[in-house]
């Protein structure tokens, strides 16, 4: 019979406490493992989120230089690598961290000879080489250029230059000779350009459009640009060395190749690169936002590390306390054997080894089991909470922490077994166990003092009930729970002792026995301590979790604005609102929002359809106190009154009569917004000299909203002219069709006002009236202040909803920038604590008003978005794409919630919840087990009572009452402590990596959400307690007295 077998027989005999010790020890080791392992996995997840969710420019290094185009890009790449590689630890590491470099060389060739409107500035055509270009472009004709002097052209260029595959392009004096067209390519989509790091810089360098050089000029679309001609780098390398050009090398981080440990080196290396003096002296400029990115990720890690440490420590301490509780019972259960061992000649060391051998071996088993359990839990949590694909590794730190927790457990076992091991043999046989019944005040005093001192330190340090936010606040529930637990554990026996006399006369035998057992059983106080402390933690963790989830939802709703938000580009010449209106005729599923973000004060203009926006935007309680329907009416009190020249109109005319006192050479100009132009915007057409009779001009890209009719002079006037004219008969013509009157045109004075073409330095002087269905306009014209007849189709200032983060007043004008980047005066008619879509800096106006107020609208300024109601995103998107709308990106509220949920504080909160719930269950289980063990030790007493004809049901009631009182008291005290801790400290515990300025967060724990999991746990414990009580009484039989077995 082996010693091992004898050992297992012993474990079997003490199966209850053995399993209890093993379970708690496994949890302790798992807790030790879980913290560091989860922290490491969460760090990786945060890092990956930080890398993947950034726009490409934020995770790239862009090096540029200029000079002779020969070997320009390759030389740049080499110079860059020479600085970067040593700091990263070699080429291999650099290759892992970065995607293959994209080397681009940019030259220029003359534009095709195309007739452009007078005054249009025509740019040269970019000639570009870009590493692996053909793998990233879709060819619509021909083949990829393979040799020098071969090029790909865009379809637009081919059309404009009248060139096709197989044709040639003469580069004239630029030195590139004749280029041979091998094929045509289609432009990459807006989404590709925005999201693929390959195209970094290409949107502005290589393709015509809003970003192309000069296209954003607020002076209007008088710039003509062309898409690049793509050629192999050999074209440049074999060009004459006199040809100058620019080169760019883009190194984009490979998100999948970056590990947590790389961040320090990476940040330092990029810092060295951007500040390298040698590169600067070689005319190489390096820019990168990678240090900003790494700083952000490091900051987010910081918001994770401290809470995880605090949470893990609390759980570990609780597990050790539990272990102490159970090991104390185990030691008592083993006390007779220890006494026997001493009697059999065991010395001090051997007795200790014998006495703690069982728990020690269980602890040894628990080490790998706990480490593996912690690892498994980490993997499970990672799968549910972290970024998909995040690895959960069993790190050396995690293994060390598991070992540490096991050693702590061993210490707890030693302390618990100390009394038993030191107890004289005779004392054991006398069964006095006086030392076991005594419970010193010293330990309680130390615990209470430590807890109160800790709370005081947190209070003094500003971690509690102050505006300061810090993870140390997470210590409060543990400390408060411990303090309450120590006091409660003293109160319960005292309260029961006070009931002695009362229960002698009332309440029956069950209550009588239960009260005495609680008052006299020392284990009960330990049970109360553990239960109270663990339930305080659990209650706080549950409250913190639900409060945080609620706030994450609020922030996500506020940040995204609607359930789904698409950043889109409407097809050229089409109004996005019209397309969306066709996609959602009801106006309840989708709406258009124009966002302008270029303000210096950080405010964002949201131009919306108020009624639709009010319905589709997400309004959580506290965002806006009033009625959103009423708000919509306030934002657009009347429909914009516009004078519209219809679509397909090619000419416009009006009649002038009764001109009086006009300066010589005065001309008339009609200003309008071309709704049908590629890029929108305000344009002007000249009506020619001001004279009596018909004034006419050619039109394109209508429909057009007339914004102004101005009178101009080539010279600054030397004197002032006070004159007048009568205007009438505004009409348009489509092609060679008949002239069609424009209604209301110039027949009503409503909406027209006499003023100046330029606002700065000019006094508005003049008047307008409408006698006989014609506008009678009189002016005062002097200097450079040309008179103008302005359309006033919108209120001024424009009514707006403003975030309280921008202004606290609804009485005064708030100046911001409109969709054209020019000043827009708004009048906040309502304030919102959080504006959906731009919580703390949003200023919402009517889109119709904003468009009318803008002189020129370009997607280079304003971002066009389509907001969708819950569940409508997919269908709306498909309809929009079918209508030719390009969707650059899509964001849902759920996406944002997911990202926020993967930030450090949220991940820590879930860890806290899981750990505290496990601790509460474990503590409850340990408490039930301890009560069961205590009951078993009283079997002889119960047997004697049964023999004395005390009814079994009275004994059953006694055990049930004891279980209910001890468990109930501990749990209630813990829940109260947890709720108090939540109320005190939740607002100080960080919930986000970067606290949002808005919306205002809510810290009231939702009662039902907190109560439900607690009730479930309590129900499970109650069931276990009832089962244990019944088992105890079932085991008590009068025959035990004859057997003399205790």
């Amino acid at each position: 019979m082996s010693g091992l077998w004898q050992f297992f027989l012993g474990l079997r005999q003490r199966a209850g406490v053995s399993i209890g010790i093993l379970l708690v020890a496994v949890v302790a080791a798992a807790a030790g493992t879980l913290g560091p392992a989860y922290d490491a996995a969460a760090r990786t997840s945060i890092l990956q989120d930080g890398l993947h969710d950034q726009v490409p420019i934020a995770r790239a290094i862009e090096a540029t230089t200029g000079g002779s185009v020969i070997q320009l890009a390759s030389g740049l790449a080499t110079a860059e690598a020479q600085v970067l590689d040593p700091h990263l630890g070699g080429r291999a590491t650099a290759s892992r961290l970065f995607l293959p470099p994209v080397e681009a060389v940019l030259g220029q060739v003359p534009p095709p000879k195309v007739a452009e409107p007078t005054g249009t500035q025509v740019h040269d055509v970019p000639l570009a080489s870009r590493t692996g270009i053909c793998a990233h472009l879709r060819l619509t004709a021909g083949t990829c250029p393979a040799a020098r002097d071969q090029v790909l052209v865009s379809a637009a260029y081919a059309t404009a230059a009248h060139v096709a595959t197989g044709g040639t392009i003469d580069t004239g004096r630029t030195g590139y000779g004749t280029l041979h067209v091998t094929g045509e390519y289609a432009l990459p989509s807006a989404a590709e350009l925005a999201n693929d790091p390959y195209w970094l810089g290409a949107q502005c360098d290589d393709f015509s459009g809003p970003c192309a050089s000069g296209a954003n000029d607020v002076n209007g679309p008088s710039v003509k640009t062309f898409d690049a001609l793509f050629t192999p780098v050999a074209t440049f390398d074999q060009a004459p060395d006199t040809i100058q050009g620019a080169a760019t090398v883009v190194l984009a981080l490979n998100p999948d190749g970056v590990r947590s440990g790389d961040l320090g080196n990476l940040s330092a290396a990029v810092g060295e690169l951007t500040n390298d003096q040698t590169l600067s002296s070689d005319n190489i400029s390096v820019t990168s936002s990678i240090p900003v990115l790494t700083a952000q990720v490091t900051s987010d890690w910081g918001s994770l590390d401290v809470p995880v440490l605090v949470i893990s420590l609390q759980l570990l301490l609780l597990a050790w306390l539990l272990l102490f509780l159970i090991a104390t019972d185990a030691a008592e259960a083993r006390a007779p054997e220890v006494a026997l061992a001493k009697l059999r000649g065991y010395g001090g060391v051997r007795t200790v080894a014998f006495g703690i051998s069982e728990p020690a071996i269980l602890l040894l088993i628990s080490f790998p089991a706990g480490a593996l359990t912690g690892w498994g839990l980490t993997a499970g949590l990672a799968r549910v909470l972290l970024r998909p694909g995040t690895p959960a590794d069993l790190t050396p730190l995690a293994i060390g922490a598991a070992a540490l927790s096991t050693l702590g457990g061993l210490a707890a076992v030693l302390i618990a077994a100390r009394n038993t091991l030191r107890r004289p043999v005779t004392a054991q046989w006398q069964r006095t166990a006086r030392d076991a019944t005594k419970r010193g005040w010293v330990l309680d005093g130390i615990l209470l003092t430590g807890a109160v001192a800790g709370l005081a330190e947190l209070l003094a340090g500003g971690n509690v009930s102050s505006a300061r936010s810090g993870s140390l606040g997470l210590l409060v529930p543990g400390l408060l729970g411990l303090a309450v637990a120590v006091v409660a554990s003293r109160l319960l026996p005292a309260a029961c002792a006070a009931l002695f006399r009362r229960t002698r006369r009332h309440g029956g035998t069950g209550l009588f026995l239960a009260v005495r057992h609680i008052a006299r059983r020392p284990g009960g106080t330990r049970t109360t301590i553990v239960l109270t402390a663990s339930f305080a933690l659990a209650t706080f963790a549950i409250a913190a979790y639900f409060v945080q989830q609620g706030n994450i939802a609020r922030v996500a709703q506020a940040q995204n604005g609607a359930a789904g938000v698409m950043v889109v580009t409407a097809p050229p010449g089409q109004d996005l609102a019209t397309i969306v209106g066709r996609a959602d005729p009801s106006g309840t599923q989708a709406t258009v929002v124009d966002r302008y973000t270029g303000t210096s004060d950080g405010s964002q203009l949201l131009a919306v359809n108020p009624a639709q926006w009010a319905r589709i935007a997400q309004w959580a309680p506290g965002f806006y106190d009033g009625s959103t329907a009423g708000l919509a009416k306030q934002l657009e009190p009347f429909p914009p009154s516009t004078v519209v020249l219809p679509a397909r109109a090619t000419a416009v005319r009006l009649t002038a009569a009764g001109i009086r006192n006009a300066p010589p050479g005065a001309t008339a100009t009609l200003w309008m917004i071309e709704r049908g132009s590629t890029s929108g915007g305000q344009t002007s057409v000249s009506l020619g000299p001001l004279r009596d009779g018909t004034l006419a001009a050619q039109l394109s890209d209508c429909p057009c909203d007339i914004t102004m009719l101005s009178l101009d002079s080539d010279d600054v006037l030397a004197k002032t002219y006070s004159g007048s004219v009568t205007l009438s008969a505004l009409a348009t013509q489509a092609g060679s069709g008949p002239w069609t009157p424009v209604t209301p045109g110039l027949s009503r004075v409503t909406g027209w006002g006499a003023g100046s073409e330029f606002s700065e330095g000019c006094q508005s002087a003049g008047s307008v009236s409408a006698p006989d269905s014609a506008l009678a306009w009189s002016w005062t014209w002097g200097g450079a202040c040309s008179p103008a007849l302005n359309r006033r189709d919108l209120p001024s200032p424009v009514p707006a909803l403003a975030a309280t983060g921008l202004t606290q007043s609804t009485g005064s004008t708030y100046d911001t920038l409109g969709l054209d980047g020019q000043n827009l005066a708004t009048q906040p008619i309502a304030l919102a604590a959080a504006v959906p879509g731009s919580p703390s800096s949003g200023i919402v106006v009517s889109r119709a008003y904003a468009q009318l107020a803008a002189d020129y609208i370009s997607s280079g300024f304003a971002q066009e978005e389509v907001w969708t109601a819950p569940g409508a995103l997919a269908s709306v998107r498909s309809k929009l794409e079918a209508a030719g709308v390009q969707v650059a990106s899509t964001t849902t509220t759920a996406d944002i919630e997911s990202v926020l949920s993967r930030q450090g504080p949220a991940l820590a909160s879930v860890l806290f919840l899981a750990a505290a719930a496990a601790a509460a269950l474990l503590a409850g289980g340990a408490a039930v087990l301890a009560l069961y063990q205590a009951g078993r030790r009283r079997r002889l007493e119960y047997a004697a009572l049964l023999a004395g004809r005390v009814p079994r049901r009275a004994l059953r009631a006694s055990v049930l009452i004891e279980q209910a009182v001890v468990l109930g008291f501990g749990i209630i005290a813990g829940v109260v402590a947890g709720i108090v801790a939540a109320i005190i400290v939740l607002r100080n515990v960080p919930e986000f990596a970067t606290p949002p300025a808005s919306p205002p967060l809510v810290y009231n724990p939702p009662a039902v959400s907190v109560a439900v999991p607690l009730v479930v746990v309590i129900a499970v414990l109650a069931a276990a307690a009832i089962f244990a009580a019944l088992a105890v009484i079932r085991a008590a039989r009068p025959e035990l007295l004859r057997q003399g077995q205790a």
Partner: protein
Amino acid sequence: MSIAMEAPPATATPTPAVRCESLVHVFGTPGNEVAALRGVDLVIEPGEMVALLGPSGAGKTTLLWHLAGLLKPTAGTVEINGSPLSALGGRALTSLRLREIGLLLQNPASNLFPSRTALGNMLFAQSPTRRTRAVKRKRALALLDRVGLADAAGRVAGLMSGGEQQRLALAVALANGPKLLLADEPTSQLDPASAADVIELIQAANASLGTTVVAVTHDAEVAAALGRTITIRDGRVGSAGHAGREFIVVGKDGTLTLPGDLLDEFPAGSLAEAIRCEDGGVLLRRVDPGNLGPADEEAL
């Protein structure tokens, strides 16, 4: 009523197995003391079998624990085979207990590891010794055979009957060949047949191994089987029995504790007169205070 008393002749003795001199033991805390032993003088020769008798609370078990070296005397000395226990350190005491003392407790289950097998209990008892495992096993099986448990070596002790457990406990107590076997109520929880078996085994151990036996008992049969009896009364050695005769033991301070059956004749508070007889004996005569002569009253 009178009792004749005679002093025994003084003889030289070898090193006793047990010697207690003026052994005093006080339990409790200051202000709440209970004197369990009030000056016990006792000598037990090697190979003797002694039954400690006496009423409950007289101090029998306390005396036994002193003999096992489990208590430190409040006053007085205990010597086991010539070794004064108070002079021994913890390790030496443990070693002495391992080598020379076997202890058999009242409750059979208290003597054993209930989860271990009979053989496991035997081996555990020998584990502190330096015997090889094979020797330990051989001795264990031999002893189990001697107590009639040869077939039960692999059975778990906790599942044995009370008689089997006590026989196993005796085997465990004898596992290291002790010179002194201390037994506390070894048969009190056994049926008569099992009790007889245990007594027989104790006698056999004494006969074959020369083991000195000291047993606390209330059982007259056990007392009779062991031969010599020592009755403890009120913390003192009250009387001693030998070969069927009962003797009053005179304390160092000259105190006598009368046998219980004489208490009717000498109730508490009664007066007695010790009269030296011509044959060298002493006569104890009860005196009635009402019949005292003038000389008596003067003497009083």
